[in-house]
């Protein structure tokens, strides 16, 4: 299969060549004269003078250079004097002397017709659609005041595709191709692409197979960008409500680090508001018996993963030829799915440590169950995740015991927000509350798991001290932070230089993997996160509608929470120390190995590419 992203790279280079020539262009938009740099589109130019041209297929995650502009929906058409046809503002570059009309009657009529056409091929499911209120098509229809569709041809009908993490309700697809761009250009997974021709055209896995027979990683980035209800998460709120209502069950909840930095957005709080305490209070009001923190398990992950790193490093330094370096982090299930599908020959390189979600589940259903005197089957573990891949991860067979899963349900941040709204909880006025014991205590190192660079920084904080026996002079590793797609830094382990690589986004991960495959990798350890920005940009987070500032604000909040914590290193977490003393023994020990580590599968055989 040839991936479209290669082409886009060529195209971007082409644009870059064009842009070298930093000419100034003078033009007129809606009777206002303005000057822009060469290469600026009409859409961008109009924005600089306060004119918003409506768009639908266009998507742009700012400086991350994740951009979709196929010029397909034709909502953004404008009139350029002297041209017969209208032009799409999102892709048409300004040219000297252009006279543009963005909202004259001809343009407005064409836009309305285009929108009516889209709506004429769309189910009117808004009342029961999970995107309702967030749907970009819905809000355009409202803005344009559409009350009637003049055209009454057919509606295209497709089979619904239900996977453990994602539901494709493709009747609602408007062919904006954003998911295709995300899945191909950014994630290089090549799962979703346009198929069929004419009115039957739709975005789907090859041969219209279901997602669970494709190389989908369940990263959920397609869901994050889909403007309509065509792609949504598999919703488990009903099952969770049922568990909460069942008197025979004790329901335990864990919350991932990135959730607290984004949940507030669903309640109108500004992006970057930290709502840890309110989230705990809300979960208690919802009736969860214990409110715990995935951060606790993240500290545990660091103990195991950090020890594994040190173990491989020591063996490597002693000259053991069999040891595999670099070690790759394994806490992101989207990433795990990716290498199982796309790099099966490398499944022995990543750390064997389970993700924090699964470590939590494994410990909850053994250690915790014992502690509170319950049988495994009477304990229900729910996790609140920024992630859709976790929904799939908790259904993996190896993460269950006698058919009972370690984690029963994974809800997305969005689903939790809906639950809180359903229960009529006044979220913003809740008093802060604390997590329960014994799985609620965590360090700042665990919090930063929520952002790209965080896992490796947390691992370094612990591995450094375990290796050198000395206290770290400075805890903030600025060199590992940021949003650049591929970053690298060398950390001095008391004379031993440890070379670290970081990538977020699977396309960027692919680059590092290709290096390893070719024997050119210079790293000892690499952190990989599937989503842009790491879990703060996860597929289950409140929709950003392409606003990069939201991701930046979430990232900032995560580092603030780290700073605020009295504990900032995983190995200093007393609850973790107690867990090892009372139950696990030592990191990488037998019990840990059994409960906290896993192995990976070559999944290439699971893909079905034709009927």
């Amino acid at each position, binding site marked *: 299969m040839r991936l479209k992203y290669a082409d886009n790279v060529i195209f971007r280079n082409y644009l870059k060549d064009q842009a070298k020539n930093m000419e100034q262009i003078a033009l007129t938009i809606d009777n206002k004269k303005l000057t822009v740099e060469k290469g600026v589109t009409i859409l961008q130019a109009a924005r600089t003078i306060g004119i918003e041209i409506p768009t639908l297929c266009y998507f742009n995650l700012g400086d991350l250079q994740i951009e979709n502009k196929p010029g397909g929906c034709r909502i953004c058409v404008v009139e350029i004097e002297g041209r017969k046809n209208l032009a799409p503002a999102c892709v048409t570059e300004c040219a000297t002397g252009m006279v543009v009309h963005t909202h004259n009657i001809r343009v407005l009529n064409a836009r309305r017709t*285009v929108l009516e056409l889209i709506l004429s091929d769309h189910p009117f499911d808004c009342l029961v659609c999970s995107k309702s209120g967030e749907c970009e098509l819905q809000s355009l229809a409202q803005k344009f005041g559409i009350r009637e569709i003049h055209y009454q041809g057919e509606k295209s009908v497709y089979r619904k595709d239900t996977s453990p993490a994602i539901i494709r309700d493709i009747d609602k697809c408007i062919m904006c191709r954003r998911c295709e761009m995300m899945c191909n250009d950014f994630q290089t997974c090549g799962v979703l692409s346009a198929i069929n021709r004419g009115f039957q055209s739709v975005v789907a896995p090859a041969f219209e197979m279901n997602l669970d027979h494709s190389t989908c990683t369940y990263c959920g980035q397609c869901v994050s960008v889909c403007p309509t209800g065509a792609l949504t998460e598999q919703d488990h709120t009903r099952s969770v409500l049922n568990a909460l209502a069942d008197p025979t069950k004790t329901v335990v909840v864990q919350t991932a680090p990135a959730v607290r930095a984004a949940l507030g957005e669903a309640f109108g709080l500004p992006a970057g508001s930290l709502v840890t305490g309110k989230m705990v209070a809300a979960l208690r009001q919802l009736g969860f018996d214990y409110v715990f923190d995935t951060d606790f398990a993240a500290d545990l992950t660091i103990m195991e993963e950090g020890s594994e790193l040190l173990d491989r490093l020591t063996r490597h330094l002693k000259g053991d030829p069999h040891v595999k370096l670099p070690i790759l982090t394994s806490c992101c299930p989207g990433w795990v799915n990716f290498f199982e599908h796309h790099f099966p020959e490398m499944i022995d390189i990543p750390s064997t440590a389970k993700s924090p979600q699964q470590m939590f589940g494994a410990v909850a259903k053994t250690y915790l169950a014992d502690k509170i005197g319950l049988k495994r089957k009477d304990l229900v573990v729910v996790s609140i995740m920024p992630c859709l891949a976790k929904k799939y991860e908790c259904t993996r067979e190896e993460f269950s015991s006698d058919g009972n899963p370690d984690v029963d349900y994974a809800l997305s941040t969005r689903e939790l927000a809906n639950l809180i709204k359903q229960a009529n909880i006044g979220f913003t006025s809740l008093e802060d509350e604390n997590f329960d014991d014994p799985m609620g205590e965590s360090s700042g190192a665990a919090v930063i798991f929520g952002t790209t660079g965080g896992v490796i920084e947390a691992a370094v904080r612990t591995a450094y001290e375990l290796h050198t026996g000395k206290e770290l002079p400075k805890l903030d590793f600025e060199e590992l932070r940021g949003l650049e797609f591929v970053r690298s830094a060398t950390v001095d382990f008391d004379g031993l230089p440890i070379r670290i690589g970081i990538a977020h986004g699977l396309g960027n991960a692919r680059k590092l993997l290709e290096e390893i495959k070719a024997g050119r990798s210079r790293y000892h350890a690499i952190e990989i996160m599937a989503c842009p920005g790491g879990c703060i940009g996860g597929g289950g987070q409140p929709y950003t509608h392409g606003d990069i500032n939201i991701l930046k604000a979430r990232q900032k909040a995560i580092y603030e929470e780290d700073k605020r914590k009295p504990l900032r290193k995983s190995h200093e977490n007393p609850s973790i120390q107690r867990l090892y003393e009372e139950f696990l023994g030592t990191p990488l020990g037998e019990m840990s190995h059994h409960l906290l580590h896993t192995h990976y599968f070559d999944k290439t055989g699971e893909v079905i590419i034709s009927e």
Partner: protein
Amino acid sequence: MEKRNLKKVDIIFDISECDYLAVLDKTILRDPDEVILDIIDSGLKGRGGAGFPTGLKWKFTKNEDSEIKYVICNADEGEPGTFKDREILDRVPEKVFTGMAICGFCIGAKEGYIYLRGEYNFLLEELKMKIDLFNKQIREKGLEFTIGIRSGSGAYICGEESALFESMEGYRGEPRNKPPYPTVAGYNWKPTVINNVETLVYVSMICRLGPDKFKELGTKDSRGSKVFSVSGDTPSAGIFELELGMPLNEFVEEFGDGDTKAVQVGGASGHCVPRKQFNETIIGFEGIPTGGSMMIFNSSRSMYNVLHDYLEFFTEESCGQCTPCRVGCQQLLKGIEAVKKGERKPAYLEELKKLALTMKVAAKCGLGQSVANPFNSIIDNFREEIIY
């Protein structure tokens, strides 16, 4: 308006002038700019449908600063009722190769490709052999140019130049946003001349005989002659090379069956001309241009069925990329069905005509933009047949 009488000519398929190597020898001794000036001077416009002046296209591409450039021969010929490119490639392929090599010489391209319609794969083996021989012959002349051939994916839209590039690059055949135009960024995003099969043959002719000879035929806006594919209700279906600029009534006299009620000029995406307009309609770029297809309908034809077939074709062949075309074609199709069945009032046709006009200005490529041609011309002229 300048008119010519109907005149059959024999340039394209004339094999007495087939010493293509001599044409090439003569041309590559000249200055490329001069050759391009000749082509501009000849007034040759593209024969693939859009009618862009060929010489200018070459000049723009030559002026681009790029190590790599391409020449592409568009042999996708998907327009229903057109089969002239197939005939040319079958009978006089060397003339096409020569046109390509001259183009490569002029613009500074070292590679050329023929994009052959999937349905024409039966020509592939023979063409490959001839191409190999040609490549060898021109290499011996020291001309650094190689022709290759690609088999198309069988979709009508792949004839659209930018969709053709996407298809050649191994992607779904979908038109790109323009600009950039092919002359700036075509195949592999490099400067590219893409010409129709027939256009390239006329290039060989102009290089052999000079622009003046070419200009002897045709009108000011439509120089030269053109190959027409005549089909429909005609006793003499087939391929005919005719001088450009003739009035449609003379064409109908020659090729009609005596009962012609309309001619669809330019295939499904062209215009339907009713009998009452035959006299005033000129076939050429100043009148109604055509990629070559002339479909003749006599009074026994239902124009509803004709339009219905076209709309079905577009509904299926749209690449599906842009809203106006993907949804619009289907709405037009279902719309005339509903009017025919009496489910909607005849006035709905007015609504549909407006929709077609919106498609004309808002669709992404020539396919969606041209649906209004057959739609509005058939509705306007045969409204009763559509309703009753």
